[in-house]
């Protein structure tokens, strides 16, 4: 049957994939997508724990907060990306090295 471990395993894989996306994608928007993946993996984890234990609904409530937070944070991040684009005309992450050294 589908038990807790399956959900945890799934969120772990999603988390790793999201991590990998952040680490290796050049496009800034793609990095943001990776961030979403990581956050969602985390909230999936939370919901799974809430379903399979007796701690009530706090996990699910917490995951709603996470979603809100993710949205806000994505907004800000995109605003930054837009401002970088307006300044440097590209959104390559590896070429935004103004803070270098």
């Amino acid at each position, binding site marked *: 049957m589908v038990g807790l471990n399956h959900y945890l395993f799934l969120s772990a894989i999603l988390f790793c994939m999201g991590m990998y996306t952040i680490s290796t994608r050049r496009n800034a928007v793609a990095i943001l997508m990776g961030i979403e993946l990581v956050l969602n993996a985390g909230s999936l984890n939370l919901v799974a724990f809430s379903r399979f234990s007796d701690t009530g609904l706090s996990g699910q409530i917490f995951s709603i907060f996470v979603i809100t937070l993710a949205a806000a944070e994505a907004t800000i991040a995109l605003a930054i990306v837009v401002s970088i684009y307006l300044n440097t005309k590209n959104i390559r992450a590896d070429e935004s090295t103004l803070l*270098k050294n």
Partner: protein
Amino acid sequence: MQHYIWLIPLFPLLGALFNGLSNFAGFRFSKKISGGIAASMMMAAFGVSVGVVLALSHLEPAHRVFVNVLYPWIKIGQLQVDLAFLVDPLSSVMILIITGIGTLIHFYAIGYMWEDKSFQRFFTYLNFFVFFMLLLVLGENVLLMFVGWEGVGLCSYLLIGFWFSELPNAKAGMKAFVVNRIGDFAFIIGFALLYWALTQHGVYTLSFRGIQEHAHHLIGMMTPMGLSVVTVVTLLFFVGATGKSAQIPLYVWLPDAMAGPTPVSALIHAATMVTAGIYMIGRTNVLFTMAPTTMTVVATIGVLTAFFAGTIGLVQNDIKKVLAYSTVSQLGYMFLGMGVGAFSAGIMHLMTHAFFKGLLFLGAGSVIHAMHHEQDMRKMGGLRKKIPYTYLTFLAGYLAIIGFPFSSGFISKDEILWKAFSSGSYGKFLWFVGLCGAGITAFYMSRLFFMTFFGHFRGGHDDHHHEPHESPWIMVAPLMVLGVLSLFGGLIGLPQALGGSNLFEHWLSPVFGHGAHEVAEQVVAHAHHDPIEYVLMVISTSLAGFMVYVAYTFYAHESAKPKVWAEKFPALYRKLYNKYFVDEFYQGTVVKPTLTWSAFLARFDSGVVDGFVNLVGRVGILFSYLNGAIDRVLVDGMVNGVGSFLRAAGLQLRRLQTGRIQNYVYVLVVGVMLVIIGRILI
């Protein structure tokens, strides 16, 4: 009156300061004022001296001592030396001579030096000299006397080298000072030894009265080397006296000192400074009478000098040089007198010599003045008619020095010869040499007298278009006073043998009574009117008379005799003319080695000593350089090293900041993983 004694040296000092300070400050007075101040200070000193001596004579003979203490000068431990003046019969004679004859010479010098451009400086030095001479004779203790002793040496140097722009004059001044100094050195050692010896007996004094009182402690005291202390002390004092009073071996400065102006020669080298040695022996006679060895040495050297210097004077052609050697010779007679214990005879000859030698020098100065500064006697002659006053006064001095009966020189010289004769068998030898010396004296003085004043004038009329003329009154008047004194001044010492009562000897007996007793008793034992005394007088007078006659035939009219005799004994003549080559001997044995030694020391000082000092300096510099290097290299290196290390580290660490977010995420993930793994493992 004794409280005014300090005025006697003060007046000449004031004169010297007045003339000196203004002169060296560039402020010149008129010659009348300058000379007038100098001479009047001398007269004032003479006046006070007369007053003091008169007051002294009112006292009992045994108590005739005045002491005038000014203030305690030195106080070290138990020794106290005061700035104090002592007047007793001996110093009374000296101050009268110094101030009296000094005054006459000052007046004479105003005339003599009138055309000189350094008139004021001359009188400064002359007054200064008299001040020191008075300190010498009035000094109550050895140290004050020594201050005067050195001071007269200094003034002698200044006055001999008065015309120092001519090198020979400057050299003569230096020679006088240096030779004097040798004597002074011996003198200092002498009185240091004396003081030490006295302290060994618990006596801490340098005053003459103290020495007189405690001298008996020194009888029999020996030095570690087996010599009697008193003998050594008195011998050292005597060496000092040979320097100051120009005896063998330290007489060589006096003939050269004739480079100074003639009044200087008259004052210093006839009447005063050169008598300092004899005065000193008189002052310390208590010590000398305790040392018969020294007395013999004194008498022997005195009479040998008298003879020896006379022989040199025989062939000199410069009038002043003849007089200079004559002075050396006559001083020898004074030492002869002191050496045989005839102290008052010696002092009497000192006084009469001051009269006649002062007169002879001043007369010679008058001759030189008349001859327009020509001093060679071969160019003189026949001056008898041209400068009669000078001639007559010079005649008086001449008669005195050759020992014309009843002149002052006769009385004093024959007194000395008589006392020498009657002091034992050695005394007979001394008398004989002294007699020969007297004969030589008569000869060379007659030679001088006849060559200068008789015969034809040999001066020529080339550039000296003036005829020799008489000197002004201011120069002739002192000559006349001295002439009278030379002829009649000896009568106060007329011995009993000739009908007098020898007041002079009586006056001095409190001073010389102590030690002279033995000798006096010997003399008395020979009975008052010993016929031998008359015999001796007759012998010396006839010898002198014969010498005068021989000199007359040689020199009074142009004669070939001198040349003939000179050619008969060429080697002897050469020796005498060149003063026995003594100066050259000294130059070779003393002067040159000293100069070589001092050059060596100078090189040593600049080479070794300075080299050493410089080496120390260089080592210091090297050391500080090393320090600096270490500081620069090591210390700064370390500091800089830390800095550059941090910089390098920073450079490397900079590379971590790539500015790429992805790198930061990567690091973050790896870090978290490490933490988790760590938690699992540990």
